[in-house]
């Protein structure tokens, strides 16, 4: 039994119900409601029928199933006159059954749920009712499934208005969950539920039930919060498996690759698969292809629903995962994606287990990972870059990542190795900067330790490598409120700077100290000096590489 028993309320369908009412009210021959699995077609139909029943207006309800699909007039068997049941007179059965529905029971409306499963005879009967009788029809069908020609004719011949039911919007999704759980849902959890389920009520129910069962969704401090990760609940796997169960091996491989790399540029997918399975999957709504934008961005392929990705990835064996990552990385490099998206491509290389041979790519990716505060990934990418020959920059990057991970000893060992006499001056200067930063910001050591590190390093380095260390020392002096000392160090840095960046760093640092001291004119003078370069610095690709 579910943790939230019973039928979930009908939420967010006011506009759809009003549209159906309008169609039926004006005597339209038929209305077709189409939608994906779980989007709530049958729930909408039930809601509409309940309101109609409450008004004392009964409706004949027919439910087609896979079982009735094999029996002529199976869905309408209850209304087929006994005298005709075994005669084989299909036209006679059709006319007589239609007459019974219209004259005896139906009143003005017949509702047919899952009409895509109707046998040909029942489908012909539905079309006949729409074309030749005053009975109104309300028909649901599943999108993307084969549908009898007679049912398709309802909207193709303009006998019916077809309403393609969409998932719930974000606020509707939140409203539904809050009604079911009986309390507010935290903002981060709201958007997570919507992203994960795409507003599909069936998936939403399964996700909420699974999250409650696994203790991932809990009530704390007055609202419901999502903490942790779902571990592939069985019902969800079944739901998704039902949807993708009909795929052949080639289509399944495309789905798995997209699940692991989405969104994937079309050109990458087409290096991994033929066009045919991709088109087939798109036609069935299992993948979505965003068209190229007018600005020139290429088309992107993603799965038709976020849950497909979650479930597909949860089911894949480790070696398959590794193989897919290798394939993705190779195709991405061949398509030139590593220039535009180095972090993703380098991560695929890493996960694919290949010995990576492109230290520049790995270093660029590690920079992006560091900027994204993903220190674990930064360390892994930097280590791979070291193995690939990335030099002291790769070692330094790994040390930078290990500090925030509180792996002090490993970081210190790497930095000590870079600080030795045998290292290049650039490496020694950079290592001292990282050591000082980690000492003060991560290890929370006394500021004097960081100041001593940069001062000692600066003293032992040739002139042209000192400015960045002097500026760093000047910043520490500001933190210690030794503002005159800060200005002195920054001025010394500017005097010795050989690069524009070092010079601007020194000027801004000195200007800030001057401002703290109330020397407004001096501070404004530094602003005037730096201002012309601001745009250049902001647009410089210094952060990458």
């Amino acid at each position: 039994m579910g943790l939230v028993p019973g039928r979930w309320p009908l939420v967010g369908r006011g506009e759809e119900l009003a549209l159906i009412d309008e169609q039926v009210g004006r005597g339209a021959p038929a209305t077709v409601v189409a939608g994906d699995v779980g989007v709530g077609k049958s729930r909408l139909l039930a809601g509409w029928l309940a309101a109609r029943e409450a008004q004392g207006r009964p409706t004949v309800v027919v439910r087609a199933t896979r079982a009735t699909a094999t029996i002529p007039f199976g869905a309408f068997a209850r209304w087929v006159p006994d005298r005709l049941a075994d005669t084989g007179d299909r036209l006679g059965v059709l006319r007589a059954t239609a007459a019974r529905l219209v004259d005896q029971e139906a009143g003005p409306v017949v509702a047919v749920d899952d009409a895509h499963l109707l046998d040909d005879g029942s489908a012909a009967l539905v079309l006949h009712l729409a074309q030749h009788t005053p009975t109104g029809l309300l028909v649901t069908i599943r999108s993307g499934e084969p549908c009898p020609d007679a049912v398709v004719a309802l909207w193709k011949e303009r006998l019916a208005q077809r309403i393609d039911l969409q998932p719930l919007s974000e606020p509707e999704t939140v409203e539904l969950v809050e009604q079911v759980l009986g309390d507010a849902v935290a903002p981060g959890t709201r958007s997570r539920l919507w992203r994960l389920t795409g507003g599909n009520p069936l998936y939403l129910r399964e996700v909420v039930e699974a999250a409650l069962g696994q203790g991932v969704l809990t009530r704390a401090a007055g609202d419901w919060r999502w903490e942790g990760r779902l571990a592939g609940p069985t019902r969800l796997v079944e739901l998704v498996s039902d949807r993708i169960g009909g795929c052949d091996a080639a289509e399944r491989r495309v789905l798995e690759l997209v699940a692991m790399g989405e969104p994937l540029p079309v050109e990458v997918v087409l290096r991994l698969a033929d066009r045919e399975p991709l088109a087939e999957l798109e036609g069935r709504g299992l993948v979505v292809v965003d068209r190229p934008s007018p600005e020139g961005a290429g088309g992107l392929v993603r799965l038709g629903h976020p849950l497909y990705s979650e479930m597909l990835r949860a089911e894949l064996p480790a070696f398959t995962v590794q193989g897919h990552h290798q394939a993705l990385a190779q195709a991405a490099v061949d398509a030139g994606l590593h220039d535009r998206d180095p972090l993703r491509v380098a991560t695929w290389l890493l996960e694919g287990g290949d010995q990576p041979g492109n230290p520049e790519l790995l270093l660029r990716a590690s920079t992006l990972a560091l900027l994204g505060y993903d220190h674990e990934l930064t360390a892994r990418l930097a280590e791979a870059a070291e193995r690939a020959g990335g030099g002291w920059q790769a070692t330094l990057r790994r040390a930078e990542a290990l500090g925030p991970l509180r792996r002090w000893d490993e970081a210190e060992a790497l930095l000590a190795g870079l600080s030795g006499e045998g290292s290049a001056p650039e490496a020694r200067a950079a290592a001292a900067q990282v050591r000082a930063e980690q000492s003060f910001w991560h290890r929370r050591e006394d500021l004097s330790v960081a100041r001593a590190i940069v001062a000692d390093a600066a003293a032992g380095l040739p002139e042209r490598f000192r400015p960045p260390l002097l500026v760093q020392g000047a910043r520490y002096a500001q933190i210690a409120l030794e503002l005159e000392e800060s200005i002195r160090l920054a001025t010394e840095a500017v005097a010795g700077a050989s690069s524009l960046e070092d010079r601007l760093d020194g000027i801004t640092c000195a200007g800030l100290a001057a401002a703290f001291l109330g020397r407004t004119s001096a501070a404004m003078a530094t602003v005037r000096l730096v201002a012309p370069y601001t745009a250049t610095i902001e647009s410089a690709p210094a952060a990458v590489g």
Partner: protein
Amino acid sequence: MANHRLDVQGAVRALPRAHAVLLRGALAGFDDAELAALVGVPPESVRPMLRLALAKLGGLLADPGGQSPG
């Protein structure tokens, strides 16, 4: 003073994907056949879908409380 600016982009983002795509496509001047291809429905279904999308967008703009920021 309260901020009365309409966050139309935020409201469109809170719609189901097909509704958002349909509205953007309609605003860009696509015809029914093009819109149908964009969202993967028959052309006959575009107008009712557009009507629903507009109704839902109107609801969101009238009561934006449920939208996530950004």
